[in-house]
């Protein structure tokens, strides 16, 4: 089985999806001729032609608005928004229209739309190129939101998103695009939307996280295990909506202690929802308060300060130790 990094996995998956179904269309800013700023769509225009893989104007509301029309009209559009910080102009189309058409039409109109969005920091990008706004998307009923943290899941979730009859946002953690390689099968497979993954089993405490922060959590867990200090389980949510409350409940019930980790600012972030869900599904198992480790409540900083902003192994380790003491 070939080893691939995440960006390669996404590239071959898009290639495969375009090849297997003539309704699939891939488009966005610089995705055609240039192959995408992160190379996710490299060579796809050469292979599948310009009508199916094409460049759009720099107009996110236009990209998503057009994609809605294409999806309603019978195509399977996969739109790319170049950076998550650019998604705001397209949010009205996504949340007020794409997410609602099915309910508005009593299920008669479906919007099988996929929006791929690179997100998150850690790559020394300028302002507005490092945002994580999953909390906004998760709060908009009608949208599904998935976040792979491995090459394997990137392929399986993207394929599942294209198969899904409703709009799905696939958030792609930029910092993990090239961070690691993994065996990714050539054949088609899906990872079911709505299922979390135990990224590392453990017995003393559960770190619940997603996206870029899965790597931070695994790093901290390995270090704590190597020092013989504590056994940390890492739960990678993978789907943020629908949220796998069963897996959250099972993981927290098992260890009795949890830390929730995300890179978006703390207040109003999705971590609040996860902690609230823990209260509702595993209250009687808790042996300590659940702590959140997250970005501070400031706009994403210029990159010289990025390392102060992003949660890291040291901050997570401190939170884990505090939670174990209670």
């Amino acid at each position: 089985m070939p080893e691939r990094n995440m960006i390669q996995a996404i590239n071959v998956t898009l290639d495969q999806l375009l090849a297997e179904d003539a309704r699939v269309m891939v488009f966005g800013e610089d995705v055609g001729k240039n192959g995408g700023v992160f190379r996710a769509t490299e060579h796809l225009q050469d292979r599948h032609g310009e009508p199916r893989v094409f460049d759009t104007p720099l107009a996110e509301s236009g990209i998503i608005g057009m994609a809605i029309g294409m999806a309603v009209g019978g195509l399977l559009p996969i739109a790319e928004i170049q950076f998550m910080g650019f998604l705001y102009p397209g949010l009205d189309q996504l949340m007020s229209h794409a997410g609602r058409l099915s309910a508005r039409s009593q299920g008669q109109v479906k919007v099988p739309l996929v929006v791929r969005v690179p997100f998150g920091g850690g790559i020394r990008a300028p302002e507005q190129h490092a945002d994580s706004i999953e909390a906004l998307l998760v709060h908009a009923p009608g949208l599904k939101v998935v976040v792979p943290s491995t090459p394997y899941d990137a392929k399986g979730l993207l394929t599942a998103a294209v198969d899904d009859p409703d709009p799905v946002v696939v958030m792609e953690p930029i910092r993990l695009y090239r961070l690691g390689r993994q065996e990714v099968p050539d054949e088609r497979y899906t990872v079911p939307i709505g299922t979390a993954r135990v990224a590392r089993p453990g017995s003393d405490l559960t770190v619940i996280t997603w996206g870029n922060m899965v790597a931070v959590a695994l790093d901290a867990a390995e270090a704590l295990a190597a020092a013989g200090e504590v056994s940390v389980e890492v739960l990678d949510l993978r789907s943020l909506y629908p949220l796998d409350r069963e897996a959250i409940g099972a993981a927290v019930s098992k260890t009795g202690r949890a830390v929730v980790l995300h890179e978006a600012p703390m207040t109003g972030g999705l971590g609040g929802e996860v902690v609230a869900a823990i209260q509702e599904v595993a209250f009687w198992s808790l042996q300590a308060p659940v702590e959140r480790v997250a970005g501070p409540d400031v706009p994403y900083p210029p990159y010289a300060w990025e390392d102060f902003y992003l949660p890291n192994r040291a901050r997570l380790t401190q939170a884990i130790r505090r939670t174990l003491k209670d």
Partner: protein
Amino acid sequence: MAMTYLEAVRETLRQEMRRDSRIIIYGEDVGVRGGVFRATEGLQAEFGEDRVMDSPLAESAIVGTAIGAAINGLRPVPEIQFADFIFPAVNQIIQEAARIRYRSNGTFGVPLVIRAPYGGGIHGALYHSQSIEAFFAHVPGLKVVMPATPYDVKGLLASSIEDEDPVLFLEHKGAYRSIRGEVPDERYLIPLGEADVKRTGTDVSIISWGMTVNSSLKAAEALAKQNISVEVLDLRTIRPLDTEAILATAKKTGKVLVVHEDNLTGGFGGEVSALIAEHALFDLDAPIRRLAGPDVPAMPYAPSLEHAFLVTPEKIEAAAKELALF
């Protein structure tokens, strides 16, 4: 004197405009017509077309021009006709208004107040009934104010206009004509970031904001007749958040019901629940409960379905009673 919630909005705008000639008002139909809800009725006649004017139906332009006006020394108080229409302006609000102080290292502020009627119960159906606070409570640099009573409308709106940073002022349209209360003639300020105990009690705490505070008070009244003593904490502003007041009431009663009209998942109730879970877990006698709107894409139009969506006094009473007997 006694007045409605809507009259409190209008009279405060009038008083503030008389006090400060930098204040300008604009939005869709706010001038000649006086606003679809009549919140600005008579203001154009009193202050002239230069200070109270109609805008095009373009929310991004309304907020975008207001940012420029605010930076250049005016005190714009634009209206977004229905909160549901705010999403075309979300890029201006989140990426520009909220970030300019941070981006300019404190050199520029954006003293802007965006008024937006939110919420359901008036047969507004899709696009005229949404609660939007959770999307903006996650945004560093922004303040989010949600008064429940005419008295609080006046003090909070005056404080919002005096604030040097952007404020989102959310008025519940169901409250406009149904909620009355005493409002002093003289000018007064209620600090942003201070919650208010609207009713003291000992058995259960209800934490809410906006219109559902009024529904919670009705429920508390009904429960008092059943010898259940309910405390009602009105957050009044959800960003900045009065964490101390939240923890104080949670520790006092040990049983917390968080109530909001907005849909549950990713709603601001998650943040409130998470704060209590992190800082007051061992004071709790029962799991924190959230009562909120369902995760469906929009408020239905049919009266029976709209009623089913809304968090009514009866539903709050049942949930609080269950918690009291836990």
